[in-house]
């Protein structure tokens, strides 16, 4: 399914920081990861994105060595580490709850990995100080973890994981314990930091916004398999399946049937008599049920797009930077997100007719099972 699979395979010549091949993991009879291939290049940030239970955390734990795969191999810089104990792998791991050592100072937390490696004391001091400086915590070296805020604790966890200069940094939902405002700030900050250090990183998250902002490449997982992988732009604008379209961003899903297929990769969908031309995705057949997907923010409250739908206005909700417009079209719901500056729909009465339009490139048609 992956759009970038081919390219990542041909890149096999340069050794990846991490590569996972044919990974399968089961707990008893339950198989959680059902065959997964992954390559992360030096300095690349990838995200394993997916709903809970899709196997993304299990994959991360397998790379760290806490879970033993039933099939497949895990390689660091080409070396097979599948049978190596977790304490011999040289992998950095940032836990969801940070897992700081509560009885140690920030300095001792960060120094722990170096002490285990029997690094001489002066070098430990120097490297820990450099790591704390990197995460802007040099003034907090003597504090205990509980004396720090959530954001600071998270940065300690990162410093502790990177100070050992790991082959790869794994981060398990590192932002999920922060409040909304801090989480938004830390996304950008964290990406900048990781890029500065140039460490190959694998994030795990269920938050699509986080995945889009943080990563060079998003790997969308579903039920133990990779559903699609690609750059955030590709994943957002060109979802490979209905699942991917529903998972990334907010979109409208209009049910209809395929009217005809064009030669140029487009198709025409019939929705209760109205026809729309859009990009054809997946194996469409004329007359078969299909779904037209249009992202909410691509809808316009005018006739500027080639595709136009005569809708009934239902409600407009002010969201601050944007206005959410709820309309119905042929009994199906159509939601638009318009910039608040347009004052879109402010003067409409519920029940009023309204035309929403979108560009041809904004629509995607997927086959539908039922």
């Amino acid at each position, binding site marked *: *399914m992956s759009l970038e699979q081919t390219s990542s*395979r041909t890149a*096999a010549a340069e050794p990846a920081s991490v590569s996972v091949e044919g990974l399968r993991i089961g707990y008893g009879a339950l198989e959680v990861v059902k065959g997964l291939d992954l390559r992360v290049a030096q300095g690349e940030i990838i995200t394993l994105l997916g709903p809970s239970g899709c196997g993304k955390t299990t994959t991360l734990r397998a790379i760290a060595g806490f879970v*033993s*795969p*039933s*099939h*497949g191999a895990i390689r660091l810089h080409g070396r097979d580490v*599948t049978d190596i104990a977790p304490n011999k792998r040289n992998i950095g791991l940032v836990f969801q709850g940070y897992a700081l050592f509560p009885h140690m100072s920030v300095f001792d937390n960060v120094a722990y990995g170096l002490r285990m490696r029997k690094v001489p004391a002066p070098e430990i001091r120097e490297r820990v100080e450099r790591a704390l400086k990197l995460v802007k915590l040099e003034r907090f070296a003597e504090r205990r973890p509980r004396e720090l805020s959530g954001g600071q604790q998270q940065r300690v966890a990162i410093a502790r994981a990177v100070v050992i200069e790991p082959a790869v940094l794994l981060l398990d939902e590192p932002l999920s314990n922060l409040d909304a405002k801090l989480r938004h700030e830390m996304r950008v900050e964290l990406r900048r930091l990781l890029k500065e250090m140039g460490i190959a990183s694998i994030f795990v998250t269920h938050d699509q916004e986080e995945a889009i902002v943080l990563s060079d490449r998003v790997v969308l997982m579903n039920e133990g*398999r990779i559903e699609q992988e690609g750059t955030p732009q590709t994943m957002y604008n060109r979802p490979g399946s209905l699942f991917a379209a529903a998972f990334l961003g907010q979109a409208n899903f209009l049910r209809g049937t395929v009217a005809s297929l064009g030669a140029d990769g487009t198709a025409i969908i019939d929705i209760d008599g109205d026809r729309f031309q859009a990009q054809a995705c997946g194996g469409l057949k004329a007359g078969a049920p299909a779904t037209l997907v249009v992202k909410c923010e691509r809808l316009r409250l005018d006739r500027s797009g080639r595709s136009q739908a005569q809708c009934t206005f239902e409600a407009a909700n002010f969201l601050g930077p944007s206005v959410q417009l709820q309309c119905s079209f042929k009994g199906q719901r159509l939601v638009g997100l318009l910039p608040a500056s347009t004052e879109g729909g402010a003067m409409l009465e519920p029940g009023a007719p309204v035309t929403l339009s979108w560009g041809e490139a904004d629509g995607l048609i997927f086959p539908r099972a039922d």
Partner: protein
Amino acid sequence: MSDLAAPNSIPGPRRRKRRFDAAHLALVAYVVLFVLFILAPLVVVVGSSFEPRELLRFPPQGLSLRWYYQALNSDLFVGAAWNSLIIAIFATLGALLLGVPAAYGLARFDFKGREAVSGLLNSPLLVPELVMGLALLQILAGLQIASSVLTLTLGHILICLPYVVRTINSAIVGVDRSVEEAAANLGAARWRIYLTILLPIIRPALYAAILFSFLMSFDNAVLSLFLVSARTSTLPISVYNYVQYSLDPAIAAVSTLLMAVSVVALFTVSRLVPLDRIKQ
């Protein structure tokens, strides 16, 4: 996608690695041996209670219920057992009636010295039971009150109280205050909040408190040693006195029955509350 073979060799199925299993097995084996070590004395007692002859020995030379029959027909043991049962029931009731409100006060109201009181009640070993027995003996002697089932019950209440308060207190502390506020907000007066919200929520702790209180009293030997008279002897005291002059399998039979009471009580409560939630 998972069905496509990757170009650079996918290994075949691999045996699940046993990286941690040596340590794991060793520890499990240790735990099992450990439990056997703890249980060994009981196996000896239970085993020798089935001895058919007069001599207490393990393993027994046969299997006989002779000593059980004898113990259950002994006025000494049966009378003491009734005393123990009555005292345990009333001591438990008394400890609950006194202890539950105190536990609530400690959990829900701030007052000066609350920390101290709480600390005191959380350290039941502060007062050795022996000293408590001596004190009660002295008080009874001073007030010239004869030992009776009533004085024994009062003494047992004193022993059981801290356990009841601790168990109930930590359960109440674990109940979100906002649940009580929600009930008040919906129109419930204070006493209705206790009856319809708080007590039902802490029911597992109530069961645990009843269990512990009952067994503490039923099995108590030290305090009773100071407070019993010939007429009011409890089962543990009768066993102790019996051992003073004779060590025959009857004593193993009674001991087994004493344990059986604990097992039955524990089993009854564990039907109502998961075992690992029964905390002191």
